[in-house]
């Protein structure tokens, strides 16, 4: 009984494996798959203030969310044709690799290892973030070099802790790291004075300061102790799809540079600037070259606005996060946003 059963099982297993491996690997491009499906699948954070969160009506908002809406507008002419798939940090890359999402737009830092070993490609950096430090103002500390013996509150995750060590060890500064599992405990521990310093990405630190009863009691130190360039991610091996994502982001940044926004984009088609004409599809076949409609960039800008509009709506000073642009200003204003030309 048991032997024949084993044999049956073995046969079944072999047949099953054969069926799977024999299935033809589809050579369909991501763009074709997206068009056929009629919507874009976008991996975002389940909830992250400013980047991907739900408003009161359960509609997703946020900077990362808008990147996907822009790509949807570029492909379909409609920013609403996106299904958002919430992904945690530990499953995000596999979800992209296995084709569950077309884009991963999830506060993902570009690093050497991720780019070279995961079979992924990064688009242009959309937010230049970095690990920041905030202290109680009453300590009178003005620079990270004065933090000798400080208790530092942080969230688990190897990079935060590792960045601290990388930054302070060469300077021979001792500190006490206090790790918290939940964001709320972490924040309250700092407010209640358990820690002298709180650290995370600058965008996070800014949001902690924003929720304080009196934000002026706290100072964000000028040092940025790590580089965290956040970028959308696509699968490696589909150059066309990567171009679409990259140039959609570039178009949003270029639009700010050229003074094009969601309100005036239709009038801008009459602009005499040849680069604007090429970008908005008035002259040339730039959209066709991407496999899209020539109005791709126009639709993206109309759908979500230019980079500045996206920033102000989700992260900027009028929101609860109250983030200043910092390095995320245009290169013409002393920032790092510099897009290749549209020609």
């Amino acid at each position, binding site marked *: 009984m048991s032997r024949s059963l084993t044999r049956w099982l073995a046969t079944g297993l072999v047949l099953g494996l054969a069926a*799977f491996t024999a299935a033809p690997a589809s050579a369909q491009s991501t763009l074709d798959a997206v068009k056929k499906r009629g919507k874009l699948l976008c991996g975002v954070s389940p909830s992250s203030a400013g980047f991907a969160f739900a408003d009161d*009506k359960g*509609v997703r908002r946020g900077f990362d969310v808008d990147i996907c809406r822009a790509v949807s507008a570029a492909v379909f002419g409609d920013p609403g044709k996106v299904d*958002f798939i*919430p992904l945690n940090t530990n499953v995000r890359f596999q979800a992209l690799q*296995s084709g569950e999402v077309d884009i991963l737009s999830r506060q993902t830092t570009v690093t050497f290892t991720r780019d070279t070993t995961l079979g992924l490609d990064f688009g242009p950096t959309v937010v230049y973030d970095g690990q920041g430090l905030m202290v109680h103002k009453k300590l009178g500390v003005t620079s990270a070099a004065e933090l000798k013996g400080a208790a530092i509150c942080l969230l688990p995750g190897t990079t935060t802790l590792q960045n601290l060590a990388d930054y302070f060890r060469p300077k021979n500064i001792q500190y006490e790291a206090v790790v918290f599992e939940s964001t709320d405990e972490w924040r309250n521990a700092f407010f209640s004075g358990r820690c002298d310093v709180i650290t995370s990405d600058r965008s996070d630190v800014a949001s902690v300061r924003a929720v304080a009863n009196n934000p002026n009691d706290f100072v964000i130190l000028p040092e940025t102790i790590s580089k965290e360039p956040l970028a959308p991610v696509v699968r490696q091996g589909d150059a066309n799809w990567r171009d679409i994502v990259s140039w959609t982001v570039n178009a949003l940044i270029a639009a700010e540079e050229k003074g094009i926004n969601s309100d005036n984009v239709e009038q801008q088609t009459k602009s005499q600037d040849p680069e604007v004409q090429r970008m908005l599809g008035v002259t040339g076949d730039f959209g066709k070259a991407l496999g899209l409609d020539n109005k791709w960039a126009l639709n993206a800008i109309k759908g979500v606005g230019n980079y500045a509009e996206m920033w102000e709506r989700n992260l900027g000073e009028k929101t609860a996060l109250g983030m200043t642009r910092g390095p995320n200003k245009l290169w013409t204003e002393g920032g790092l946003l510099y897009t290749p030309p549209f020609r």
Partner: protein
Amino acid sequence: MTTTALQAAQAPLRRPRPSATWRRRLGPFIGTPVNAVITAVCLALLLWALSAAYRWGVTNAITEGGPQACKGRAGGACWPFLATKLRFMVFGYFPYDQHWRPLAALLVFFSACGVTMMPRFWSRRLVGLWAGAVAVIGVLLYGGVLGLPRVETTKWGGLPLSFMLAFVGLSLGFPLGLLLALARMSKMPAIRVLSIVFIEVIRGVPLISILFMATVMLPLFMPEGVTIDKLLRAQVAIIIFAAAYIAETVRGGLQAIPRGQFEAAGALGLHYWQSMRLIVLPQALKIVIPPLVNTFIGFFQDTTLVIIVGLLDFLDTVRSALRDPDWQGIAVIEGYVFAAAVYFVFSYGMGAYSRFLERRRRMGYD
């Protein structure tokens, strides 16, 4: 003489004086000085906790306004948060103008549960009722027919998702677990070994890693372009996990049945399935009602782990609501208090119903 004997026999039947009852009832609390002190301390603590909760929830609470009204408040609750976020917390990302659909689905589900819980409706017709209820709920949530717009499973969330994962997981896991329990008690070695291996492997790993496998590993084995719905994958993982646990619970009941029952069933000429269905299982299942309900309550709360695979059940939508930048850090406890209250109501309901079933069994109704 006769009268006195009669009176003596009647004496205990007379109602005891109220003071005696009070003394008997309060005896354990204030009978000795030590007990009296303990009681007093407990009462004081209880009073202190209740008054603190009252101050937090009523006296100092903010009931109107937005995030700004709650910011910098003096230690009271911020109820506008719940009012603003209620629909999101209950229904998640389901399209706002379609919220009546999950609401109706919940009502259908509760009604079907209510009917099923009443012994007077216990008959084969319940199967028909549930088939109908599941079909209606499916149409309501998924749509695509009768003019209802299609809503993808990626947008499902909140309380309906919690109930669905737990209910489908348990109602499909239960028969599977029953078969596994029988297989583990089987005399046929192959079946017994397979069942033991299955149960021990599943019980040997945490639910979170099974969910993780189903969501992350499975798609990598699939041919390119083939994806299985994420919700379905998580649901199957929960069913399998529930089956293993239910199997062990049921096995406990099976082992409690005396051998004589099996032999008597055999002597009556019943074959295996008949004796199981008519003699053994009805007795075994009654024994395991309390541990089964324990498992059920546990699973209802464990569904929260689906956050790991990016599905937002009720607790996860509450957490998401707390992440809205406008409210972040302003209302935290309020969200968790709300979630705890909801989970308590349903878990307590299940426990109370289990006690009702036990009482009924003890009284020998069935």
